[in-house]
């Protein structure tokens, strides 16, 4: 037990005492092993605390927090200052759907025509691409990309599922639309090209082969292990439910989800997730980082 006042020892460790008083106290404490140990402990802790960086929200977390709180409070958020393109933070879903269909058509024409030219050695890389469209007739078949190599089709009529208003506020309400779906080859596909028309990627593995490698590494697929005990990525539960509701995947513990990176869909921050069933990579998905609503998917065949 020490006779020294804890406040004095703390003040000495913090360096808040006048120099002469500190020197005198330090000398007296030095003669008392218990007090010296107390002082040393205070200094060790303060040094560790000083070395600890201040945690900060990253941009995506900040956006998620704002949107989720605003959604709980039924608030309509003003436009973020960094985005000068719109007066309000909103998305014209019908325009987005049209743009997505057009962009997909443009983006896919070249690679798919290229695939057509190399169909003999295409192996199992049958490609089916489905895109969002707001046309009354939802199917926009690309006759030029006839099966078995590639089909471009609109999997959903976004307009019919979207609210009546053209502008839908993104305050937390997910875009409750049947999501656009893209089907792509299993390997060697550049995700930026295949998924890019819908998702403006922030960080992402660029190739499906890398995604597979990460799956194999994280889930030890080669050993047949279903779970390595790691924390699931954000929105895993919601994504599983969404895919099951859409009839795309079964809701099973055997579905594994891997976070590939982040991005945006029409200014909406998204997580880009990969989904495997029983170790077989089946789906890519972009989910709203605030509400976890599924915004876009791509099927891997």
């Amino acid at each position, binding site marked *: *037990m*020490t006779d020294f006042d*804890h*406040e004095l*020892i*703390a003040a000495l*460790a913090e360096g808040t005492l006048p120099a002469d008083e500190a020197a005198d106290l330090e000398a007296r404490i030095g003669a008392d092993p*218990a007090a010296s*140990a*107390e002082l*040393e*402990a*205070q200094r*060790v*802790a*303060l040094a*560790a*605390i000083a*070395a*600890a*960086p*201040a*945690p*900060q*929200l990253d941009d995506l*977390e*900040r956006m*998620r*927090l*704002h949107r*989720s*709180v*605003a959604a*709980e*409070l039924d*608030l*309509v*958020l*003003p436009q973020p200052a960094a985005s000068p393109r719109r007066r309000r933070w909103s998305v014209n879903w019908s325009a987005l759907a049209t743009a997505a269909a057009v962009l997909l058509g443009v983006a896919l024409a070249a690679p798919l025509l290229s695939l057509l030219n190399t169909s003999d050695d295409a192996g199992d890389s049958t490609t089916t691409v489905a895109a969002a469209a707001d046309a009354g007739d939802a199917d926009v078949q690309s006759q030029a990309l006839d099966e078995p190599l590639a089909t471009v089709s609109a999997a959903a009529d976004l307009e019919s599922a979207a609210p009546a208003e053209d502008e839908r506020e993104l305050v937390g309400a997910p875009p409750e639309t049947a999501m656009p779906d893209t089907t792509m080859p299993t390997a060697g596909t550049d995700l930026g090209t295949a998924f890019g028309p819908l998702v403006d990627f922030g960080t992402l593995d660029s190739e499906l082969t890398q995604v597979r490698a990460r799956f194999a590494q994280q889930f030890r697929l080669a050993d047949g292990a279903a779970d390595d005990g790691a*924390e699931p990525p*954000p929105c895993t539960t919601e994504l599983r439910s969404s895919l099951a509701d859409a009839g795309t995947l079964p809701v099973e513990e055997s579905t594994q989800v891997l976070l590939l990176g982040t991005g945006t869909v029409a200014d909406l921050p998204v997580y880009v997730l990969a989904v495997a069933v029983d170790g077989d990579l089946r789906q890519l998905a972009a989910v709203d980082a605030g509400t976890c609503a599924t915004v876009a998917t791509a099927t891997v065949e």
Partner: protein
Amino acid sequence: MTSRAAQDETLVRRYLDGDVAAFDELMRAHEDRVFAICLRMLRDREAALDAAQETFVAVFRKADRFAGRSAFSTWLYRVAVNTCYDMLRRQRRRPTTALPDHVEPADPTTEDQLRSADLRPEIEAALAALPTEFRSAVVLADLEDLPLQQVGEILGVPVGTVKSRVFRGRRLLAEALGNLSGPRRLPRDETS
């Protein structure tokens, strides 16, 4: 009243009058610190985000009860700490893994580990070893550098108690750090 506290009071009034921009300003002014407090209490970014969300929702829903007797930030941080206490209580009902006496230093290049709480892993582990009341005192007073008077208001205890908890919390922190990096003898707490 500090200028921040005065600004917050004005923003709360504007928010209650329906000004959504005031909500945004209040969030931006305090979200990093609320998140930091929650992260240091909970050691998990997702849990900290959940706690921060719960905190802000609770505070904004009850904003009409804010009387301005203490700073808005004091009220906000008190709700944050209490939210973290609740979450920790819920966590305790689930099985946990005991802190090892000795652990290998984590690979400092492993980003995921560093991002778990944005602290050095050994400090993070040492903080987690502190009893909750000491951890909250050390987090608020030392890591967040809040005035002791405000920490007392947040925790609902006298300043003297805050001082005692911070002192003992630092000692336990040093002890835990010593355990994590090797045997170390520190004095036992004669006041506990």
